[in-house]
């Protein structure tokens, strides 16, 4: 059949792209991870990864990424739900997406001003009588800014799955006497779980390897695996160790994807 042949032709660019820009880099990272700083073949990097320093770093990266994802989800789900009820959906959606077009670095610098000792937030706290607090360079500011940056990526998939939800199902639930909460728990949430899952993936995975915000907003008080990779590649020039951390990040990501991945039924 000629159709099959053309289909294969169309596959070529895609396959080349995947091979060159996805598979080759991963193999390269894996290859580099087996070399120590002197360029000798060894497993010393893997040994080093299982020392308390890096294990602690992995755990804290996990913890922060988890918090960021959880808070994003808690804020994003109701927002997405309310969005589906508004009149000008596309306009509201646009307003939520627009901030994600602004450069990340610019936004981070803006928060330096907003959270600073003499920034708007502290002036406000002063006025309402709480008094000036240290906000910048704390866990709070780090998580707040990260959530702010990631939230559009959480809202979008949830919004899409909510909008695809057939409204007659909700009517049916009402007719059958389900309370609002039961409708949400038994009908709406299970039917939008795919949106929640892909939202979590899009937030959790980049959050695991955030590195610029750890310096700008957290003042290096939060050290994630991303920070360590950056340092190993740019400062120490220990590409082996940097790659080893990257290998573990890739493994963690694959695990996370397979846990949250959508299992296709039927077909």
């Amino acid at each position, binding site marked *: 059949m000629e159709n099959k042949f053309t289909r294969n032709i169309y596959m070529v660019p895609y396959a080349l792209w995947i091979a060159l820009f996805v598979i080759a880099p991963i193999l390269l990272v894996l290859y580099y991870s087996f070399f120590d*700083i002197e360029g000798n073949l060894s497993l010393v990097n893997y040994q080093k990864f299982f020392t308390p320093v890096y294990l602690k770093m992995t755990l804290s990266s996990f913890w922060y990424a988890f918090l960021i994802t959880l808070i994003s989800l808690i804020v994003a789900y109701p927002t997405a739900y309310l969005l589906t009820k508004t009149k000008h959906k596309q306009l509201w959606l646009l307003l939520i997406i627009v901030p994600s077009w602004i450069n990340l670095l610019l936004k981070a610098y803006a928060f330096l001003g907003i959270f*600073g000792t003499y920034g708007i937030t502290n002036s406000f706290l002063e006025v309402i009588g709480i008094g000036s607090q240290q906000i*910048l*360079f704390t866990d709070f500011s780090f998580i707040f800014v990260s959530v702010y940056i990631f939230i559009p990526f959480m809202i979008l998939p949830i919004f899409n799955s909510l909008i695809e939800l057939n409204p007659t199902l909700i009517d049916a639930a009402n007719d059958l006497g389900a309370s609002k909460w039961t409708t949400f728990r038994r009908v709406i949430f299970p039917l939008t779980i795919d949106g929640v899952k892909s939202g979590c993936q899009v937030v959790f995975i980049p959050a695991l390897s955030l590195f610029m915000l750890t310096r700008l907003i957290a003042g*290096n*008080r939060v050290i994630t695996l991303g920070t360590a990779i950056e340092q190993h590649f740019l400062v120490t020039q220990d590409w082996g160790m940097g790659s080893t951390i990257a290998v573990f990040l890739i493994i963690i990501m694959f695990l996370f994807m397979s846990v949250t991945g959508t299992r296709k039924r039927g077909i």
Partner: protein
Amino acid sequence: MNRLIRVFLAVVIASALLLFAINRLNKAEGFAGDNTLTIYNWGDYIDDELIDRFEEETGIKVIYETFDSNEAMLTKVQQGGTTYDIAVPSEYMIDKMREEDLLIPLDHSKIPNLKNIDERFMDLPFDPTNKYSVPYFWGTVGIVYNTKMLDDIEITSWSDLWDPALKNEILLVDGAREVMGMGLNSLNYSLNDTKEEHLKEAKEKLDSLTPNIKAIVGDEIKILIANEEAAVGVVWSGDAADMMWENENLDYVVPSEGSNLWFDNMVIPKTAKNVDAAHQFINFMLDPEVSAQNTEWVSYSTPNKAALEFMPEEMVEDERFYPSPELTEKLEVYENLGKKNLAMYNDFFLQFKMHRK
């Protein structure tokens, strides 16, 4: 299918138009000629007016790029993707680049202005006959502090930073050698110490400083200190000068235990394509008047003796930035410690960063 082809064509046509426009713009700016000079320098490290002047005088088009650490610069030069004609590494990095054969020797006959450089800054151990490098700026690592915010506390040494009154008031610059060096200096060890137990001791000493540390940041330290976000900062001398320009309550001190003396130097890396223009540029930057103007703009200390005459007196006589030869004796220049020791410095620095309050 037709629609797909139409979309595809539209993208191709749009790309072609953009490419054409970029080409025209580059031509209008003179980028198309072969006579270009690519400079790779630290951020905020040259008066832009001087680049314009150099272009006017020589007809050479300058492409200017910046880096924020010696190591990042080295990585780019090693990879050789861009044809950098001039780079400005620090002293220990020159040693390393020389070892790795990444530098082109200078032709001194093409740089007559080399005579303007103070003899004190010539023939230094990292490049004994200045075969590869010409000093660009020099300076120290020290403490900048806000006299208004600190009232009576006087800071003259590293150990003053451990004062409990400075709780949550110190910003550190995000550099392994600078911060570990501060720990080593406060214990009266050498900045180039490579004994693991000494570094460990320094790291533990630094851990005890954690309650006083507000954050460890990059270039933002300039804005943060000038805006009085914190009262004390460990910084390079030129950054301190910049901050003092912004905020008159600030003062700078080179700690009495000793500190780091550093040099940034112009070199021609192996990636160079226009070696002739690179020599012209180095010679241009060493011109006394040009150097004076650049120094006033950058505010680090110039090694150019002839330039001092063209600079305001209060700048030249400021002992904080032009320390007397006696004080400079106490300062140490970073040596190239090799990859393995540098990794050890970084490991300890990383552990120190992870130490929570």
